[in-house]
C-alpha cells in the first residue's frame, strides 16, 4: 500500500509541541507512514521526538479560522495565506500520554489530523510498522520466540511417562487458536482429541499448561463444553478428563463465570461439566469480568486519573466506581484459589470460562507465578507470556486495538493483558525479592502490547502470525528484551530466588493502584523513578563492595 496518498501535508514549520515533563518546544512536524516526527534545531543541538502513529488512541482537533475565512473572500485572499488561522491537535496515546500540537494554518492542521486518523488505525497486519522496522543491531535471522512447545516438553522429563506431546493440531485444523503442538494425557490418542475438540468451543480441548513437580498435579485449560440446552455429552471429553486425574481421586474445575452465567450459556450452545457426567470433578464458579465491562472499567479509571480537579472524596468514589481494583482483586483471588487447590490440597485443576482465551489465561498464568519459581525469572516470565498468551491464542489484535481514550465504538477490545500486568505488579510489590524482573519491564510490556516496533503482539493467534509471516519479517520483542544491553534495565536488583510459593494477600488494603502505569505522566512518577534508580545504584554498590 502507498501511504503517501494519505499524507496531504507532510511537513509543517513552526509547530509547538507540548508534552509532560518538558517545556513547550517549537520545531518542524513531519508525518510519515508510521510516525510523527518532530524536530527542533536550537543553535547547535537538535532534538527529535518520534511518535509511533499506532500509539495514538484518540485525536481531538480545534481550529481557529475566523479571520482566515474573511481573507479567503477578499480580493487578495486567493494568493495570501490566511496567516492568523491555526489549529490545535490533542493526541491521546495508548500509553496514556497526552500531547498537544499547535499548528499554524488551518488547512495544514486538518490535513495532518486526517493523516493521523487514517494511519493510526491501519488494520492490515502487513502494513504495520513492525514489518518496516529494521534496526542495525538486529537481524531477521535471529531466533524468533523463546522456545517451542517441543522444547518445553523435552525439558520436563518427569511428566513424560503420563503425558505426551500431540501434533494433532499441526496444520491448525483441529483448533485454529492453539499452537501446532500441545501436551495431553498419554492414554488419549489424536483421534479422541479431534472428537473432544468438536465438543469444546473454538476447538479448545483441555490441554496441560502447568505440571506441579512437588506432587505431580497439573493445571489444564480449555474452553467451555458445548453441552447446549439438551445437556449433550461427549464420551471422549469425559475420558480425557478422567485420564487427567488417573485414579488420584478428585479434580477441580474452576469456571471463570458465575453459576448463573454458566447455566445461561447453555441456551447459546455452551455449557459446563455437569456433576452426573463428570463425577470425579468438582466445579467452582468464580465470576471474572471480561470484554466490554473490563474495557469500560479501564476507561473510567483513566478518566479519573486524568481529572486533577476533584476532591479526595470524589477521587476515591471514582476509583471505586471504575471497579478496576475489584477486577484485580477477583483475578488474584481466583488465581490464589487455583494455586491452593494444586499445592495445598493436592488436586489437578481444569480452568475455563467460555472461550478460554481471556480470563482463563489470566488465572492460569497468575497461578503459575504463585507456584512456580521458574516463571518468576526474567526469562521465565517472558516464556510464560509466550506459552500462556501468545501460543495459547489470546487475541491481542482484537483486544488491544484501542485503549482508554478512544472514541471509537467498542468492538472486541478488553484490557485483559493489562490486568494481568497489574496483578503481576501487585505480586511483585508484595514480594519485592521474589521476582527476577522489574516494574520497567511490566510498563514496557503494557506499552508494547498496544503499539510496538516489534511483531510479537501482532495478530490473534499463532496461526495468523505464521500466515502473515510475522516470524520471518519482523523482530521479536522478547528476544530483544533479553539482550545483555536491555537485560539489566529489566531485572530486579533485589531479586533473591525462592523455591516457595508466594501467596498474595488479597485483602483490599493490600492492593494498590498501579501508579507507575496509570499515573505515569505525572510529576509523581518522576520522584519514584529516581528512587528506583537510587535503589539500583545502591545494590550495585553493595555487590561491588562485597
Amino acid at each position, binding site marked *: 500500500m502507498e501511504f503517501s496518498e494519505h499524507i496531504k501535508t507532510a511537513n509543517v514549520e513552526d509547530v509547538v509541541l507540548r508534552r509532560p515533563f518538558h517545556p513547550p518546544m517549537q520545531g518542524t512536524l513531519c508525518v510519515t507512514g508510521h510516525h510523527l516526527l518532530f524536530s527542533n534545531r536550537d543553535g547547535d543541538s537538535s532534538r527529535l521526538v518520534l511518535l509511533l502513529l499506532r500509539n495514538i488512541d484518540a485525536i481531538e482537533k480545534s481550529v481557529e479560522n475566523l479571520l482566515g475565512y474573511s481573507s479567503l473572500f477578499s480580493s487578495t485572499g486567493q494568493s495570501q495565506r490566511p496567516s492568523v488561522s491555526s489549529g490545535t491537535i490533542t493526541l491521546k496515546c495508548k500509553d496514556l500520554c497526552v500531547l498537544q500540537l499547535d499548528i499554524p494554518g488551518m488547512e495544514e492542521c486538518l490535513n495532518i489530523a486526517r493523516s493521523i486518523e487514517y494511519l493510526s488505525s491501519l488494520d492490515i497486519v502487513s502494513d504495520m510498522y513492525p514489518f518496516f522496522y529494521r534496526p542495525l543491531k538486529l537481524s531477521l535471522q535471529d531466533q524468533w520466540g523463546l522456545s517451542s512447545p517441543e522444547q518445553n516438553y523435552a525439558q520436563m522429563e518427569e511428566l513424560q511417562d503420563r503425558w505426551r506431546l500431540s501434533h494433532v493440531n499441526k496444520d491448525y485444523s483441529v483448533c485454529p487458536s492453539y499452537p501446532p503442538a500441545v501436551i495431553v494425557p498419554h492414554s488419549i490418542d489424536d483421534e479422541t482429541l479431534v472428537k473432544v475438540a468438536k465438543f469444546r468451543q473454538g476447538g479448545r480441548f483441555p490441554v496441560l499448561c502447568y505440571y506441579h513437580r512437588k506432587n505431580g498435579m497439573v493445571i489444564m485449560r480449555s474452553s467451555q463444553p458445548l453441552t447446549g440446552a439438551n445437556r449433550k455429552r461427549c464420551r471422549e471429553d469425559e475420558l480425557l478428563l478422567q485420564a487427567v486425574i488417573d485414579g488420584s481421586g478428585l479434580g477441580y474445575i474452576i469456571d471463570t463465570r458465575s453459576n448463573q452465567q454458566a447455566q445461561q450459556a447453555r441456551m447459546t450452545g455452551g455449557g459446563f461439566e455437569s456433576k452426573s457426567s463428570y463425577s470425579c470433578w468438582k466445579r467452582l464458579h468464580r465470576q471474572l469480568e471480561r470484554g466490554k465491562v473490563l474495557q469500560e472499567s479501564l476507561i473510567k479509571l483513566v478518566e479519573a*486519573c486524568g481529572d486533577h480537579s476533584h476532591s479526595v472524596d470524589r477521587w476515591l468514589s471514582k476509583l471505586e466506581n471504575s471497579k478496576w481494583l475489584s477486577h484485580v482483586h477477583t483475578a488474584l483471588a481466583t488465581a490464589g484459589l487455583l494455586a491452593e487447590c494444586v499445592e495445598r490440597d493436592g488436586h489437578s485443576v481444569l480452568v475455563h470460562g467460555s472461550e478460554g482465551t481471556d480470563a482463563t489465561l489470566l488465572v492460569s498464568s497468575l497461578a503459575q507465578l504463585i507456584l512456580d519459581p521458574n516463571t518468576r525469572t526474567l526469562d521465565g516470565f517472558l516464556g510464560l507470556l509466550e506459552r500462556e498468551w501468545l501460543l495459547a491464542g489470546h487475541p491481542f489484535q482484537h483486544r488491544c486495538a484501542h485503549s482508554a481514550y478512544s472514541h471509537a465504538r467498542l468492538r472486541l477490545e478488553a484490557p485483559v493483558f493489562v490486568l494481568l500486568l497489574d496483578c503481576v505488579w501487585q505480586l511483585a510489590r508484595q514480594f519485592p525479592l521474589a521476582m527476577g524482573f522489574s516494574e520497567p519491564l511490566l510498563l514496557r510490556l503494557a506499552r508494547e502490547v498496544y503499539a510496538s516496533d516489534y511483531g510479537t503482539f501482532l495478530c490473534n493467534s499463532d496461526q495468523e502470525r505464521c500466515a502473515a509471516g510475522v516470524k520471518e519479517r519482523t523482530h521479536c520483542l522478547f528476544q530483544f528484551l533479553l539482550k545483555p544491553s536491555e537485560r539489566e534495565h529489566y531485572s530486579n536488583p533485589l531479586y533473591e530466588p525462592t523455591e516457595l510459593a508466594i501467596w498474595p494477600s488479597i485483602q483490599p*488494603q493490600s492492593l494498590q493502584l498501579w501508579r507507575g502505569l496509570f499515573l505515569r505522566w*505525572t510529576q509523581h512518577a518522576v520522584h519514584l523513578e529516581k528512587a528506583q534508580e537510587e535503589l539500583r545504584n545502591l545494590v550495585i554498590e553493595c555487590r561491588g563492595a562485597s
Partner: protein
Amino acid sequence: MMEHIRTPKVENVRLIDRTAPRKAMVGTLYLSATHTIFVENNPETRRETWVLHSMVASVERPPTTPSGSHLVVHTKNFQVVQLLIPQERDAMDVQASLARLSRPEKYSELYCLSINPNANKEEREESWSFLDLQADYRRMGVPNNLWVSTPANSEYRVCDTYPSELFVPKSATPPVIVGSSKFRSRGRLPVLTYFHQDTLAAICRCSQPLSGFSARSQEDEQMLEAIMKSNPGSDYIYVVDTRPKLNAMANRAAGKGYENEDHYANIKLQFIGIENIHVMRNSQQKISDVGELKTPSMGDFLWGLESSGWLKHIKAVLDAGVFIAKAVAEEGISVVVHCSDGWDRTAQACSVASVLLEPYYRTMKGLMLLIERDWVSFGHKFSHRYNHLEGDPKEVSPVIDQFLECVWQLSEQFPCAFEFNERFLVQLHRHVYSCQYGNFLGNSQKERRDMGLRERTHSLWPQLWKDRAQYANPLYRADHTQTQGILRPNTTPYCFK
C-alpha cells in the same frame, strides 16, 4: 498496680490468628504490673507476645461460646489480639484487670514513673541533654538582628502552656508582648517557630485573637506589624487560620474569632479548613473499623475509606503546610499561623511546613527536634489527646498521628528525601502512646517541670538514636537532589494512599 490484678496467670489460653482463625497457639497468659504476656506452650518455639498495658485501647468480651470466652484486645497502635480463655470467670477477671490497668488514674501509675529513677542516674541525666532546642534555633540563625529572645515568659508568667524561652521580633516591646498575649486565647501570643535564612521570612504561631465581633487590641496589631518589619523588604504577612471559615466565624460569638483585616494593616488572611479534633477522632474510628471488616470486597473497602474522610483530612493538613512553605520560600513572606487554641492544627501546619522547607527536619535528629519544638515545647496536650490517664474522651484525638502520616505520605512521594524509614515513624507513634519514656507526659512544659519528669524518667530520643541503624532509609543520601532544598509535593488526591 499489683492490687488491680485479679488473676496473674491463666493456663490453656488460645491466641487466635485473625487471618487464619483455625490456627491458634495454646499457651499461658500472664498479667504483670506493666504487661500482658502470652507464652506459647510449644517447647520448641515458646513464642512470646507482649502487650504493654498503656497501649491497650479496649478489651471486648463477645458472648461466651461452648469452647470458652473470647477476649478481643485492641491496642492504640491498631494491633488486635484475640484470646480464647476456657473459663468465663477467668476471662471476666482478665478483662476487669486490664480495663483498670490500661486506664491509670494518676501519672505515678505510668510505666515510665514506675522505675527507680536513680538506678541509672547518669544515663538518665545524659538522656535529657541529648536534644538541645536552643541549639536548633541557633542553627536557623536565631537570635539575630531581627528576632530576639524575650524573658517575658520566664516562670510561665504570660502563658503557662508556652515554653519559657520565646523568640519575638526585635521591635516588639514588653508592653506589646504582654498586651498581645492578653488579646489571645489562653495567652498564646504570636512567637517565632521557624526562621528561613534564605528569604528572612519566618513562621510564627499563636492562638485565635479575642476579637469577638468588634474588639481590637493595639498591642496585638503592633505585634503583627513587628513581625512584618522583622522581614525586611516585605510589605505584608499572611495570617493562616487553619480552621474552616465557618468555624472561625462561629467563634466570634464566644468573644474569639479571627483577625479583622481592616484593623491590622498589611495582613492577608487565609483559611485552610482543617477540621477540629472531634471530626478527626470520628474519622479515625471509621477508618480503623474499615480495617477490621471480616471479608470486605474492594468496593466496601474503598467506600469505607472514602466515607471515613481520613485522606481528605490528611490532604488538608498537607495543603496547609504547602501553603506556608510556599509563602516563606517562594514569596519570601512571613506567616502567622493559628487555629483556636493554637496547639493542634497549628502544630500540624507549622511542623509540616518545616519538613517541607528544611532538609534538616527530614533527618532523624531533625525530626526529633521538630517534634520537641512544635509539639512538646509549645504545649500540645499529649496526655489529653492520647489518653494517658483516664480522662475526658472528648479530649482524645489523633492529632500527631496525622502529622506522622503526612510525613509518611511525603516519604512515599519522595523516597530518597528522608533519612529515616517508615519504622521510625511507627516507633514514634507507638511511644506517643506508650508512656515508656517521660517525653510525652503531661500537657505543657510547665506541667512536665512541675512533675519533675527529668528527674524521674528517661528520655526516648537517645534510645531511638542508639537504634538508628534499623530506622535508616537506605535510599537517603545527603547530597541527592531530592534531599536538597524545599519539597514541592503534589497534593492532587490520587497521590494519597
